[in-house]
């Protein structure tokens, strides 16, 4: 299971979920365009999972760097280095420095 591609377990389920949603909408007389249907029915394959996770990571990282930049009144570059060094320091503090 650990070697499986991201989304392999969930994609078809998400797609059938999307298909049911489209059926419910149409049976209640709500018109949907083909493009809208595709958007709703598309399950998340590995590339989508990857993009979504990385977008999250990048947005969070940028937000943290900008916050440091405001707080310390420094450039984004300095703030990025401060964050990186703090993260490494924290990891050493928690995990210890053995060997």
């Amino acid at each position, binding site marked *: 299971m*650990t*070697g499986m*591609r*991201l989304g392999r377990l969930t994609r078809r389920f998400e797609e059938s979920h999307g298909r049911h949603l489209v059926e419910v909408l149409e049976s209640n007389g709500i018109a949907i365009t083909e493009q809208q249907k595709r958007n709703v029915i598309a399950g998340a*394959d*590995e*590339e989508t999972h*990857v*993009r979504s*996770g*990385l*977008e999250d*990571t*990048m*947005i969070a*990282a*940028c*937000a943290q*760097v*900008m916050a440091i930049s*405001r707080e310390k009144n420094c*450039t*984004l*570059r300095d703030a*990025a*280095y401060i964050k*990186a060094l703090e993260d*490494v320091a924290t*990891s*050493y503090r928690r*995990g210890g*420095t053995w*060997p």
Partner: protein
Amino acid sequence: MGTIEGSGRVSDSITLPHIYNKQQSWIRDTYAQLNPGHMFTAGCVTGKPVGHGGIRGRESATGLGVSFAIQAVLSEPLIQQQLGFPSGSMSGKTFVIQGFGNVGYWTSKFVAEAGGNVIAIAERDGTIYDETGIDVHALKHYMNQHGTVVGFDNNGSSSCQFLPKEAGFVNLDCDILVPAALENVINIHNAHDVRAKIIAEAANGPITADADEILNAKGIIVIPDLLANSMGVSLFFSTLIIYFNSLTLKIETIELTSF
């Protein structure tokens, strides 16, 4: 090339590819042969081609990250105020991108998809400039066929111009400048000419330290390479996580050095 040093249990270092990913397959294969019975040989290298255990979305990751980083910075109200942008939206903002290799192409593509107006793409032999926007896909196709941007007419657009390489690209008027090729392209000789409001470092080290000071004094916001182009590397790290999530792997140092 970057390496990630694991704790004593996994004593190999893990290599990141610079350009070619078939070599990563060779490394992984050799490692597997030398370590029969090792269950997670796929984790010893990253950047493997997709069919051999690599992760999908790898090629476009860095460019995608640059686009996300720009959007994240634009969405910050204090930055909008500081730079005089009426909104944080990508549409209506002009982009100049230097370098149309992997990172430059994907950045251009995602920026355009997000609504940004790519008005210039600078390559080795000159710059294609069109204030109505460049057809990124068509230019890539043209470059693949001819190996140069020279002669590209942007689908016959009347506002398309070719700027010779001597003219440079640093002084072009735009909202966001994206150096996506070599290091030190913005230096003490041309930093004063920069007219962009934001520079997103898609390449590693495109701005020299001297130039950095000049740009800061001018109030130009620089999104550092450490942040802007890190998504490619983060993706490599994610590849590891997929294979090691059932082991406890203590990662003590993350050390990134470039070639």
